[in-house]
Each structure stands twice: as C-alpha cells, then as structure tokens.
C-alpha cells in the first residue's frame, strides 16, 4: 500500500508561486526554496470562523443526520418497554442505584459488564470500517461536536445573518441592538445545551419522573452535577471551542488518516481539472485553463476554515460542504459538477490520466473489518441468547479456615450467593458431593439428608451461610476438593461449583 501523500505533489508546484499567501491555518510553504529567507511567523491567532450557507446534497445529508441523532438523543429516554410488575418500564435505562442496565428486551447485571466491552469493540470496529470505506464520515456528519457546532452556527445565522453579516457583526461597536442579539444567541445556545444535558441525564433515571424533578429541584446532586458537566461542555465546545476541538483536542481527528488508504472515499479537489485557476468573467471561455475560478466559495463554506484545494489535510473533517459550494458555482458557469468531489485517490489519479476510474470498496482491509465486526457481533448475540438465569458465587470463610467439632469432624464455612436473574422467586436444592460422609447445613434454612432447600427472591442475590462437615478420615489433609451442586426445583441443568475443604495437615 502506498503511503498517503500529504499533498498532491504534482499539483503543488503549479499552484504555489513564491509569494503565495499562507492559508488560514498557517500551513508552511515547506517545499518552496525560492522564497526570500526571512523568519516566518508560525503563530496564527485564533479567528472566529463563520461558514457561508450552502445548498446541496451534503448539506441535506447533514440536516437529516442531525434530525435523526437529535431525535434518538432526546426522544430515546421517553420510550417505554413493559417488563412486568415492579420493574422499570423505560426502554433504555441505566439504573445506577438498582445496578442494572436495560435496553429494550436486554437486561444486564453488573457481573455482565463485559457486554459493554463488546459494545465498545463494535463501536471501534464500526468506526474503522466506516472510515476505510468513506473517509471521515464520523467527523463530518455523525460526531456530536460537528452536529452541535452546526446547530449553534444555525442559531447565529438565524439571529444575525449569513457569513458577511456575522463577520461585520463581530467588528461592530457595542450598542443595544448588538447586545440584544448576542443575548438572544446565548440564550438559545443555553437552551440547546440544557436539552443536551437533559438527554444524557434522562437515560439514568425514569425520564417521566426525573424531568419534572429536575425542574422542581428534587433531583439528586449527582443529576445536577452531570447536567452541568454535559450541558456546560456542550455550550463551551460548540459555542466557543468549535474547530479547535477537531484540530487540537480530539484524538480521533489525529488517527483518522491512519484508518483510510488510497481506496477510501475522501473529499478531493480535482486539481487536474481545476488548474491553472484564475478569475472568470460572465461568458468566460474555459479552453486551455482550469475550471477553478478562485471564488473561494469552498473556503468560505468550510466549518474548519481550510482550503481544500491544497489537498486532504488534518483540519478537513470531510463534511462535504465545499462540494456543495463549488457545485453551486459550477452550475452558474454551466460547467460539470464535481470539481471538488467525494472520491478515492486512485480513482482521482485514473481520472486525471483520462482512464476509467473504479471505486474499489471491496478489498482486503474492508473485508477484514467487516469480518471482525460480524464476529464480535455474533459473539455478543450468542452471549445474550445463551445468558444464564442463575449464577453462583462462593466465598470460603477465612477466619477460621476450619473448625474441629466436638464429634471429631471438621467443618468449613462458606458464604454461598445465588444470583437469581429472573424476576420470580425460585427454590433450589443444594448439596455437597465429593467427600465421604459430607454433611451440609445452611443457617436459617431447612436441610434434610444432607440436602438443603434455599429460596432466592426474584431479581436479587440470595446470600446463605453454608456449613460443610466431614469426618477426619475422609479428608486428605490441608486441602480436599469437592463440589457444590445447586438444582432448581423447576428443573434445568444443575449449577456445579468446585470448592475446597480445608483441614489440618496430615
């Protein structure tokens, strides 16, 4: 696999003259040795970016994705799922106090937290798979930073106006009108951030009771803390940090380029078609020159402020708004669309030479990712389907390890815990096997002929103190292995647990 070039080297020499200005992000003209030797200012002050509105396919995709994600986030906590009497009826719920996680028909106990590991694996593999196919789809469309920044920018656009107006507004002197608009913007931002925080918090409690509680001051301090953290984070990140998150803070941003190769679809400027660029008049003849009219619509539309004509770069989050902006311009000059396009490098190189370009979506990388994804998902599904309804946990009494009784027998104590994972009470029979003459006693429960009957309440852990006694002649010395066998009265496979009987050295 060829390493991904940072810039299209061939096009670079054409587009860069010695006195070409630096881009907004301060990218250094490293290859240009003909520039005069003066110390370069490598520091770029942070400027507020006001992207221009565009219309087109990618803008529509972004709106749709935003609506869907917001719907899931805000409506999700209110969905209901009937689980029976006494059980919470929220479809998606993480019950911290009750130590359960619910997702529709799935119920997870704390002992099964490894399902979260599976979910994280699936999330990671899905990200790699998605990126290998279509580049920075997460960054440009799905990431909550992108979605909320987009929404906050929409608020600014509604209150102040499009890009030009907003830039002028920033420079304007403070007066009553400016103060009122700024207040309106921040109020709306605060409301959106509050909704964001509420969306998070409501997954952790019954949404219909927790929501009014939050507003009457009856929710717990933990609830308010997380509301402040998530809501405050949303306000700061989407209101102020914006593209700084993508460029400096986020680790996903940095290793995205490691996740795609020369066949991944990325936002690409067709330099072979666009160069040499130049200004265009009304009935411009485009023979012998590039289609790029240097209108900088792509730069104006970019939420991170990059010039995509320099090539695929760190700060390009792959949102495709520059594609829409350029297409609008191409339409005006009756030129074919797609001067900036969503394409793979190999396809672009083929097109540049005039050959037929093929998108190689099925290749070893994508097959492997898809396979790993399918495997992890299958393991999770299998695990959920074959989930046990009974689990046993045994703790051997440590002090004393063993006791000599008056009869000469030795006795070991155990704390025997039965995790009853169904919602009905269940009755079990417990016996100990493996050593001749073993007898079993459970404190507080009846036992007969060495078999004890236990009752475990539904959806809870039954804790029992079990005493196992054995004659001196039967035990092998310091440690003798034996087995506990737990049988459900209603049938089913018995749960066998190996245990150790401690005794004096022989």
């Amino acid at each position: 696999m060829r390493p991904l070039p940072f810039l299209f080297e061939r096009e670079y020499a054409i587009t860069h003259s010695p006195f070409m200005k630096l881009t907004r992000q301060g990218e250094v003209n490293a290859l240009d040795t003909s520039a005069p030797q003066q110390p370069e200012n490598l520091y770029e002050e942070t400027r507020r970016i006001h992207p221009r509105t565009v219309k087109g396919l990618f803008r529509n995709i972004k709106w749709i994705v935003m609506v869907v994600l917001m719907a899931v986030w805000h409506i999700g906590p209110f969905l209901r799922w009937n689980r029976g009497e006494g059980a919470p009826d929220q479809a998606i719920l993480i019950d911290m106090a009750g130590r359960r996680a619910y997702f529709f028909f799935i119920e997870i106990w704390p002992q099964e937290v490894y399902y979260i590991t599976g979910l994280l694996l699936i999330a990671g593999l899905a990200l790699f798979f998605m990126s290998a196919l279509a580049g920075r789809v997460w960054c440009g469309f799905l990431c909550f930073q992108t979605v909320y920044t987009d929404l906050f920018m929409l608020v600014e656009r509604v209150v102040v106006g499009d890009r030009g107006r907003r830039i002028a507004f920033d420079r304007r002197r403070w007066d009553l009108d400016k103060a009122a608009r700024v207040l309106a913007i921040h109020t709306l931002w605060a409301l959106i951030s509050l909704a964001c925080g509420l969306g998070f918090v409501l997954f952790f409690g019954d949404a219909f009771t927790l929501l009014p509680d939050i507003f009457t001051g009856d929710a717990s301090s933990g609830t308010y803390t997380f509301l402040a953290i998530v809501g405050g984070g949303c306000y700061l990140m989407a209101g102020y940090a914006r593209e700084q998150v993508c460029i400096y803070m986020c680790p996903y941003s940095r290793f995205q380029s490691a996740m795609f190769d020369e066949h991944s679809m990325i936002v690409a400027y067709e330099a072979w078609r666009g160069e040499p660029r130049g200004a265009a008049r009304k009935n411009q003849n485009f023979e012998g020159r590039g289609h790029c009219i240097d209108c900088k619509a792509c730069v104006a539309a970019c939420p991170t402020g990059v010039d995509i004509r320099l090539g695929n770069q760190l700060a390009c989050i792959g949102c495709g708004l520059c594609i829409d902006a350029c297409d609008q311009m191409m339409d005006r000059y009756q030129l074919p669309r797609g001067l900036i396009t969503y394409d793979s490098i190999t396809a672009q190189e083929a097109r540049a030479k005039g050959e037929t370009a093929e998108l190689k979506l099925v290749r070893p990388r994508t097959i492997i990712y898809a396979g790993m994804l399918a495997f992890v998902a299958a393991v999770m599904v299998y695990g959920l389907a074959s989930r046990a309804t009974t689990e046993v946990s045994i703790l051997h009494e440590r002090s004393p390890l063993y006791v000599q009784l008056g009869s000469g027998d030795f006795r070991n104590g155990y704390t025997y815990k039965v995790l009853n994972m169904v919602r009905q009470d269940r009755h079990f029979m417990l016996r100990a096997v493996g050593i001749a003459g073993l007898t079993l006693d459970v404190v507080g429960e009846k036992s007969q002929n060495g078999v004890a009957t236990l009752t475990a309440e539904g959806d809870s852990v039954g804790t029992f103190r079990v005493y196992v006694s054995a004659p001196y002649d039967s035990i092998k010395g310091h440690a003798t292995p034996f087995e506990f066998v737990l049988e459900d009265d209603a049938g089913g496979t018995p749960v066998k647990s190996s245990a150790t009987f401690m005794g004096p050295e022989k």
Partner: protein
Amino acid sequence: MASIEKDPISGVYTTGHEWDGIKELNTPMPRWWVYVFWATIIWSIGYWVVYPTWPTTTGFTPGIWHWTAREELEGDLAQQKAARSKWLVKIDGATVDQIEADKELRNYALAGGRIAFGENCAACHGTGGVGSPGAYPSLADDVWLWGGTLADIQQTITHGVRNEDTESRSTIMPNFGVDGVLAPEQIAQVAEYVASLSRKQPAAGSPGEAIFAENCVVCHGEGGVGTKEVGAPPLNTLVRTFTKPTVEGISQQVNKPKHGSMPSWGRRLDPATIKELTIYVHSLGGGQ
C-alpha cells in the same frame, strides 16, 4: 543590567539577561490564567473571613461562621445515631430470642454484632471467633465451656468470667498435683484415661478410670460430657482451650490448672450491643 530586546519573530520582549549568548523570552502569562489566579486569591480572602484561619498569641481567629471540625464530627455522630435509633429501639425492646426469630432484626443484629465483635472481642477471641490456642477458647466450634444457648452466651458476655463482677462466672478447678490431692503416678494414670476419652475410645477398666470416677466426674460429668453450670469443659472431644489433649498436656492441667478470665462487658457496653453480640456469637457455627 537589563538590556531588554524585542524578538522579531514572536513580538515578545526578552528578560534582558544573557548567559553565554542565550537569551530568554519573557512571554506573558495567558490572560485567562492571570484572572483565575487573582480569583483564587480573592476567594482565599473570603476564607479568612468565614473560616478559622490565623493563629493569634492565645488561640486563633474563629471566623464569622465559627466552624470547627469537632462540631462537625459531633453533628455527624448525632445524625448517625438518629438514623440507627429506629433499629436500636426495636432491639432494646426485644429479648434475644425474639430478635433471633425476626429475620430483619436478626440480620441487623448480626451486622452490628460483627462490628462490635471486631472492636471488643476479636483481640482475644480472634476474627470470626477462631480463638487462640493455649489462651482463649474458640467460639466457632460446638464445644462450650459455659453453655452455648442464647441465654448462656448473653450471661457470659454481660458478666464475664473470673473478674471483679460479683455475678461473673467464677468456679475453680482444684490443683490436684500441686496441692497433693493426687500423687504423680495417679496423675499420669488419669491423664492416660482422659486422653483415651478424648479420642472417644475410653480405656475401660484402667486405673485411670477409677481415679476419674472418684475425682473428676463430679464436675466433668459421667463420660466427660462436661457441666456448663460450673464451667467444666467436656473432656470427650479433641477440642481444648489451654493445652493439647495429649498425656503431657492433660497432666499439666490436672497438676496446676490454668483458668481463663474475661471482662464483664455489661459495664462497658450498652444492652443493645450485648444482644447483638449474643446473636452474632451464636451464629458462628456452634450455637445451641
């Protein structure tokens, strides 16, 4: 001294010092950092006013809130006591048998008893009532010196054994050897017999059996079953407190017996705690 220059690249002034040609930029702190720094200073002044802060020659400045850590602790303890009082009232009003019968009360008593045991009893009787070989009896087995019923245990804990409490359990085994009640050969013979009794294979017809019947049965009972009223331990088991059930060990005990002593906890602990301890000790595995 200072020859401050302005760096052309960054626009920042140097400190003015130079070491072997090396100069240092005096980049100012970020504004937000400086504001936070000042805010913390002003906040700390607020602390001086409201909390105890500065030492004076005789004491300290109390602050307008007059807050003390001691008072806070007292408040926390009172709060905890109030929270527990719901249970303690019930335990005070019930006998140990009633507590044992009530599942909820019993669980609470077990938990409280476990804590109280660790604080008061474990020093001698060990965690979980293991006991200390040669010194203190194990409470986890089913062999009792003074009886293992709830009432017996409660009495033993409340009044103790061989202490200044007039109601304490205080019987004594005679010094059969030192006081010359038995001759050394007799002691050896009875020790042989008791050792065989401990192994549950009493040597019938041995001289030791006759000595045992004459001197020991009166307290230790027929067949060595023990008498809890006088604290005479059962001799028909391998469980012992002070010595091992070997001929040498038994001879030592017969010659000059060791006796145990236990404090009278009724003077140190409140009745509710003693009830909790009774329930807990009874549950350790040998309760009768």
